[in-house]
């Protein structure tokens, strides 16, 4: 069973994308839910909000533990939360870690500069959405999974993957397929 962290964000889109690829997926809101998941998706949403809720609802330690031991995929807000450092986030922002990268929040600009574009995977290109998207500004030891204009927009450190964009909004399947293969 694949869990999708369901504190806030576009949970439904991730669940339907995973199900369309033949996986069983459910929303994760509690410690018990987390225990039942063999992999976890951190969806798009507001990274500040998801982080505060994870703290306020007493889930942050369990999520960090999950990220350290099991396959995890994060999109947009999920990438920010999985990074080791986020420029432009609140100074006391709690991150989940897992990816050896530093990101900059809203680095492509605010909502008026949100856009759709084709990103390049090793296997080909796919159209995805960048919405108030974060940018990977320091890739550390992570490997590149997808690029836009030569810059990394999806990255991987071991079993943890993160993307600046939303494949779940356009229905692009490559990233979720890679994630499911890792489980």
């Amino acid at each position, binding site marked *: 069973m694949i869990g999708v962290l369901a504190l806030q964000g*576009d949970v439904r889109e991730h669940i339907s994308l995973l199900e369309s690829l033949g996986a069983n997926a459910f929303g994760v809101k509690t410690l018990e839910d987390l225990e039942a998941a063999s992999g976890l998706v951190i969806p798009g949403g*507001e990274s*500040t909000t998801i982080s505060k809720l994870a703290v306020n609802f007493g889930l942050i330690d369990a999520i960090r533990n999950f990220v350290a031991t099991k396959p995890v995929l994060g999109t947009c807000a999920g990438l920010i939360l999985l990074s080791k450092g986020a420029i432009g986030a609140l100074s006391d922002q709690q991150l989940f870690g897992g990816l050896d990268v530093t990101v900059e929040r809203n680095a492509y600009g605010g*909502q*008026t500069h949100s*856009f*759709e574009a*084709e990103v390049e995977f090793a296997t080909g290109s796919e159209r995805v959405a960048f919405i*108030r998207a974060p940018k990977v500004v320091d890739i550390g030891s992570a490997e590149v999974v997808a690029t836009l*204009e030569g810059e990394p927009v999806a990255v991987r450190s071991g079993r943890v993957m993160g993307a600046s964009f939303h494949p779940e909004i356009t229905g692009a399947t490559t990233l979720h397929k890679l994630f499911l293969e890792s489980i």
Partner: protein
Amino acid sequence: MSQEKFEGTDLVKRGLAEMLKGGVIMDVVTADQAKIAEDAGAVAVMALERVPADIRAQGGVARMSDPDLIQDIIDSVSIPVMAKARIGHFVEAQVLEALEVDYIDESEVLSPADYVNHIDKWKFNVPFVCGATNLGEALRRITEGAAMIRSKGEAGTGDVSEAMKHIRTINSEIAALSSKSEDELYVAAKELQAPYPLVKEVAQSGKLPVVMFVAGGIATPADAALMMQLGADGVFVGSGIFKSGDPAKRAAAIVRATTYYNDPKVIAETSRGLGEAMVGINVGDLPAPHRLAERGW
């Protein structure tokens, strides 16, 4: 290698609203309130000069807020900031877009600037949220380019009965559409006063093509959970938080009840010891000219 970027598409405008799902959007009038909202786990804030309860109490013409106030709030939080323009006032909307707010609310809470036309929202890169009391109104706003719908309720009352009426109306009208045969949809479009292709899309998918939040009268954690159980994608809380006895605590409690809306034990726990709720006004006691939900058409 250069890859083309397509800004301001339908999909990215509607997409931002998808990211707000499951969240609470709070009205704030100062940067300090915005920080309290952010700390409590709000997913966005609505920057205003006066909350609806005060607009109602003080009367007069309610307009777009001072850009200084909006800028101050944008600078003080990391979550998205929305701001309100008067219905039909496309220059207020241009100003808000220039300020780079994340969302514009074309709102009946302010005094309408045009009693005939709403803003042509396709002309903007910034997405719009608009109020609706029924399905036809929601579809007309989407036709004009709204990327998110907010059922209106009755703002500034703390009385949830209108919010209840509007979400139930929209849900039951969608259900009725879904049960119609294809050849009945032409007349349905005429009756809803909405374009046929959009009516057909809703009939087939069984839902609006954009996110729908609920607003107007939500004052307690149980109110918020009630709206979520009825199928809302999230809630707006206006006067309900900062007109209450302990805003920080109430804000956090409403957020928690919105996430765990299906868990009565959590809602019970989070409803304890919140102090005074906003006093409120029963909608039935409001004379018709003071009902904000009737603005917009």
